[in-house]
């Protein structure tokens, strides 16, 4: 272990806001409304809340408790902590997934974050060039053209050779800001930033929400395009969709990706808590905050504003084009219709998305930094420098292989989606079945500010693992074939696979070195004695 000062959270609210910040991301505002509208509108919220209470919150509690238990034993990395719960080597090596996910996702996530920051800057200085007073088709084409140019979607290497230098400059700024706060450490960097950024994000969201809800019926020639009908587009329930397995799968997937359970961040963050700090209420509060941003803001703003200006067919087409197209190619058209408010609302919207993204990306290096520190005995500065260097290499691939986003889509599919299921399944099974649900229940309630209803013992032991495995199998059945084909289809996707494998091998070697080091130090890495 490093001989540096022991890292710890400054306050309970600080860790809650940091975990909530990690969970609240672009998906809350862009992915959730699209998923809901495509899967039954208001009816989607029934399987959604079922998944929240049967899958997201219980697995989250397990992850919080696992992390804090690991911290009591002096460990902060997912491999070391999973080794404790698995009582052996297999858990340690499976725990590598809990470091691979945030690190590999950071390779491309900072690029997506750059979009939000770049668009924010453009709206501060006059917008993205969507012409006013022309047919919507022309406006949509202009917004799509800017989106393709900014993201380099039409050709690999375009960001380095074309007129898209602005994207690279934006990326450098965003990357530097991320590194600054990660270098400052847990409490002085991440916690401090999130304690300001989360309230600021809520204020921005509230202002945009109020603006959207007061739009009325801006075009008298289209009286059907009103705020009320826009809300109806999102919320009118289509109960027939509840009979479709796809709806339940989409709801479980949305909850899962949104809450960041199985992502490797919660287990790391909670390991820096004090031994008797509450995890039950903290975990619930972080989840509730995420839901407030997702349902309370994401569910009210995005599609309602699109519907008011683009109507039923325009909004349906935008949803069909996917989350990112909705956020970056469609909403600029919507803002162009807001007259004098266009640039203010646009800047607020993209600044809010930037805050959502950066509070997530800040969490992505910490698990890998923790592993390097405790496996190799490096200082915080040295470990952060190594991970920053890896992050730079990953980012260069992301910035080069931009054609159709093939590189980052590949990493997102295999690591940011598939492996999250694997990590969460492994965690809940080790927690409830190997560590033992009775012992785990006691661990969750150690220092707890609330008593969790005992029915959740059954949920954690039987329902959550079964639910997760069913969703995982169905998800693989639905997506895996296409992903395998896509993984080898383009140079960008092939490089994506290589980068994933190289990162995995690197992390496995680090864990192997750490295991040797921990044994030499006489640490209880197989949890043969209970924690203090």
């Amino acid at each position, binding site marked *: 272990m490093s001989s540096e000062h022991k890292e710890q959270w400054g*306050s309970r*609210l600080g860790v809650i806001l940091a975990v909530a910040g990690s969970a609240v991301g672009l998906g809350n505002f862009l992915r959730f409304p699209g998923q809901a509208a495509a899967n039954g509108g208001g*009816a989607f919220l029934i399987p959604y809340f079922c998944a929240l209470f049967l899958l997201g919150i219980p697995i989250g509690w397990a992850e919080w408790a696992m992390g804090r238990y690991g911290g009591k034993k002096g460990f902060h990395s997912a491999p070391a902590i999973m080794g404790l719960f698995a009582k052996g080597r297999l858990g340690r090596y499976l725990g590598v997934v809990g470091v691979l996910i945030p690190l590999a996702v950071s390779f491309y996530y900072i690029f997506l974050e750059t979009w939000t920051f770049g668009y924010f800057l453009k709206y501060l200085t006059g917008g993205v060039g969507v012409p006013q007073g022309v047919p919507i088709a022309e406006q949509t084409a202009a917004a799509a053209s800017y989106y393709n140019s900014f993201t380099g979607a039409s050709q690999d290497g375009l960001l380095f050779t074309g007129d898209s230098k602005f994207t690279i400059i934006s990326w450098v700024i965003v990357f530097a800001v991320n590194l600054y706060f990660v270098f400052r450490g847990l409490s002085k960097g991440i916690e401090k930033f999130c304690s300001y950024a989360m309230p600021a994000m809520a204020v921005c969201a509230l202002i945009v929400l109020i603006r959207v809800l007061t739009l009325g019926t801006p075009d008298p020639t289209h009286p059907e395009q009103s705020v009320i009908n826009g809300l109806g587009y999102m919320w009118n329930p289509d109960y027939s969709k509840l009979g479709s397995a796809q709806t339940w799968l989409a709801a479980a997937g949305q909850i899962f990706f949104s809450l960041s359970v199985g992502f490797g961040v919660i287990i790391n963050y909670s390991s820096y808590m004090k031994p008797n700090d*509450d995890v039950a*209420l903290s975990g619930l509060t972080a989840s509730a*905050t995420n*839901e407030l941003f997702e349902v309370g803001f994401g569910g009210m703003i995005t599609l309602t504003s699109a519907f008011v200006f683009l109507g039923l067919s325009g909004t349906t087409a935008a949803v069909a084009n996917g989350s990112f197209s909705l956020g970056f190619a469609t909403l600029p058209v919507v803002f162009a219709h807001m007259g004098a408010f266009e640039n203010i609302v646009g800047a607020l919207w993209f600044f809010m998305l930037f805050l959502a993204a950066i509070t997530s990306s800040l969490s992505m290096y910490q698990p890998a930094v923790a592993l390097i520190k405790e496996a190799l005995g490096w200082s915080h500065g040295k470990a952060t420098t190594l991970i920053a260097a890896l992050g730079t290499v990953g980012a260069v691939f992301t910035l080069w292989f931009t054609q159709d986003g093939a590189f980052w889509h590949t990493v997102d599919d295999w690591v940011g989606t598939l492996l999250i299921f694997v990590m969460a399944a492994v965690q809940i099974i080790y927690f409830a079945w190997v560590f033992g649900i009775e012992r785990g229940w006691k661990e969750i309630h150690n220092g707890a500010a609330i008593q969790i209803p005992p029915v959740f013992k059954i949920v954690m032991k039987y329902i959550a693992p079964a639910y997760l495995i069913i969703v995982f199998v169905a998800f693989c059945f639905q997506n895996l074939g296409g992903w395998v084909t896509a993984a080898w289809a383009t140079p960008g996707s092939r490089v994506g696979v290589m980068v994933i494998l190289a990162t995995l091998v690197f992390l496995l070697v680090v864990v192997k070195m750490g295991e040797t080091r921990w044994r030499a130090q006489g640490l209880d890495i197989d949890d043969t004695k209970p924690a203090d």
Partner: protein
Amino acid sequence: MTIGGWITMTVSLALVWVGTFWCFKKVLSAPGEEKAPPGFGP
């Protein structure tokens, strides 16, 4: 917007807003962490 839409929207929003406020109220009303008075501790 249909009656069903109003109901699902109202119930969902009430759940997330009330739930979040309840959680933060509990967190903020919990006893503060004990800190050593000046001159004591590290």
